């Protein structure tokens, strides 16, 4: 009976406890030099792209030429807002998921490796809640990383190029304000696109006590999936690869918006989050924590 009492006693402070735990997690994650360096690299990408396009088109010629390079790149010179889309399209295939993979892979394995995991477990939070907190932190990082790219791109775009009404890829015109709303929506969709990698990284993180191994495995899996997605003979597999619909965020720039691939993408991310999230839970709640 005493056991049941302690359980119900630990139920009482749950919301506050979880919140405190979450806040601590956020603070530790975002105070790490590693995290800041990752965000710094992400912020630098739009600067690079913007400067390159600016130099390339400095002589007055319109950029792009033939439509090579990342999506939307040919429109940047006419409207700086397009730099947001180009930067997201350029970072989404690799930089963003790699950053998420590093943070997610380190989430549990890093603590186990440095011996701090058992102290976390001493606190009466429970493993499930600790895991959820870890996942929530990684989700916040996904959003933060995407917003860093978007905001940096918007700043660089505003500095180097004119802003104003923009033409959607369907050829219709929308106001700058609506363009900003779409940019925000796109950033949210891009952040959501990373949830699958985040769950995968967290699962890998529960398998090992070495943070480096977990990060390397997650990033390795990411690259493998990207390569598989390029092999036409494996097209049957493609719709199930988490990265397959990533670039569908560009469908938000159509008029009217084409939802088919967007919903597929989000559905797939939820599925990955559910499968690997529950696998991480199954592993983490039953594993022996010795370090």
């Amino acid at each position: 009976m005493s056991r049941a009492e302690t359980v119900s006693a630990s139920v009482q402070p749950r919301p506050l406890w979880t919140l405190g735990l979450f806040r601590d997690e956020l603070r530790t994650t975002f105070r790490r030099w590693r995290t800041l360096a990752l965000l710094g690299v992400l912020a630098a990408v739009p600067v690079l792209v913007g400067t390159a396009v600016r130099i390339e088109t400095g002589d007055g010629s319109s950029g792009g030429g033939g439509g090579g390079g990342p999506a939307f790149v040919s429109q940047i010179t006419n409207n700086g807002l397009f730099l947001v889309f180009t930067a997201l399209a350029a970072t989404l295939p690799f930089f963003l998921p790699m950053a998420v993979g590093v943070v997610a892979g380190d989430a549990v394995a890093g603590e186990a490796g440095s011996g701090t995991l058992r102290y976390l477990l001493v606190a009466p939070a429970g493993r499930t809640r600790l895991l959820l907190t870890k996942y929530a932190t990684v989700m916040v990082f996904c959003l933060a990383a995407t917003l860093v790219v978007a905001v940096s791109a918007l700043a660089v775009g505003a500095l180097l190029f004119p802003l104003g009404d923009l033409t959607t890829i369907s050829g219709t015109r929308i106001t700058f304000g609506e363009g900003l709303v779409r940019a925000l929506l796109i950033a949210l969709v891009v952040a959501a696109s990373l949830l699958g990698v985040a769950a995968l990284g967290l699962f890998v993180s529960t398998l090992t006590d070495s943070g480096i191994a977990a990060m390397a495995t997650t990033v390795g899996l990411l690259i493998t999936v990207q390569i598989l997605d390029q092999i036409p003979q494996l097209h049957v597999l493609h719709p199930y690869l988490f990265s397959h619909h990533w670039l569908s965020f560009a469908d938000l720039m159509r008029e009217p918006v084409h939802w088919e691939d967007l919903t597929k993408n989000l559905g797939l991310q939820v599925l990955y989050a559910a499968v690997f999230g529950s696998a991480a839970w199954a592993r983490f709640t039953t594993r022996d924590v010795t370090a």
Partner: protein
Amino acid sequence: MAPNETDDTTTAGEVEEPRAGRRKAARYVVPVTVMGVAAATIGLVPALADSGDPDLPDITAAQLIEKIAQSDVERLSGTVKITTDLGLPDLGGLESGLLSGAAGGEDGEGGSSADPSGRLTELASGTHTLRVAVDGPDRQKLSLLENAAEYSLIHNGKDVWGYDSASNEVYHATVDEADAEERSAQQPPATPKDFAEEALKAVDDTTSVKVDGTAQVAGRDAYRLVVEPKQSGSTVGAVSIAVDSETGMPLKFTLTPSSGGSAVVDIGFTKVSFDRPDASTFAFTPPKGAKVTEDTEQDRGHGDFGGKPERGPKSEEDLAKGLDGLRMLGEGWNSIATFDTGAGAGLPTEEEAGDLGGFLGSLGDQVKGDFGKGTVFSTRLVNALITEDGKVYVGTVTKDALVKAAEAGK
């Protein structure tokens, strides 16, 4: 809670040491179940969504064809999915590379990647998603959805705009108002309606037409009209057209080859609305900095816009119309177009196109007959025989029928 103790808030009280192992395994049931449920949902949802064929009053084939002919849908917007599988070798990126290389030739041929003639041929292979919006004869829009880009062809009053968002290039031509009516009849065939009309043109006494039940297309109740060649020897197995029961508008067009397998051409609305599309859909001003190619030659613009990617059962007839000495052999679906290249040599393409010709030659099959030797090029729909004395036989017929025709022609 001790560090090594598992999180047991859910099962508190009933945990015993020997059960730990089983419980450990049991937790893994969760992810496996999630995966199983997901797989089942993905498999089942289409089956469940297919809520059976709708109940519609009976109609004869003649009445249905009449309905299609009388259909006067002036306004619609929707999404069309086109899948073509002609059985051509999959050139993948190479093909688009060639296309963009040809189209994006900058100032070379004055070509622009926004020029409609180059872009619409892309539809000839693979799966594409199109958006269609029509508001009367003066305003139409056709968009080809690509990865993170779109190619739009907009007809608004006397302007025809082509916009390629990937390269930010614009194509512009003007049409006379008086011409507009005729022009609207020359829309590129992208909707199931265009293809259905082509197929129904071929209906004569060599064809059997029947109504084969009903179907749901893009959430609308539709009749299924099946057109089949009566004779054997044609590569066309059947053409199935789903016709909207309310408006008489063809919603889906499927051409299956007689050899079986997947459809050669499958075009259908995945979403359709018969409301008036938003006026802003047809408004287009070239974006700042876009490269605009003006098409000043009226004739050229005309040809471009009406230039159909020939695919219908009669296409080879139209296609070869310009060639001298063209004769048609046979009738109906089994008709074969034949003409003399006059080169007196087989495979003229080999000399003309150099390496490409040699490459094409290696794709054909060698055949022999009373006419001598020849090469047969086959796709899943159209077969062509080029004899060594330079005669060409083309038709939507089987290889044997081509050889027979060539022997008879000798």
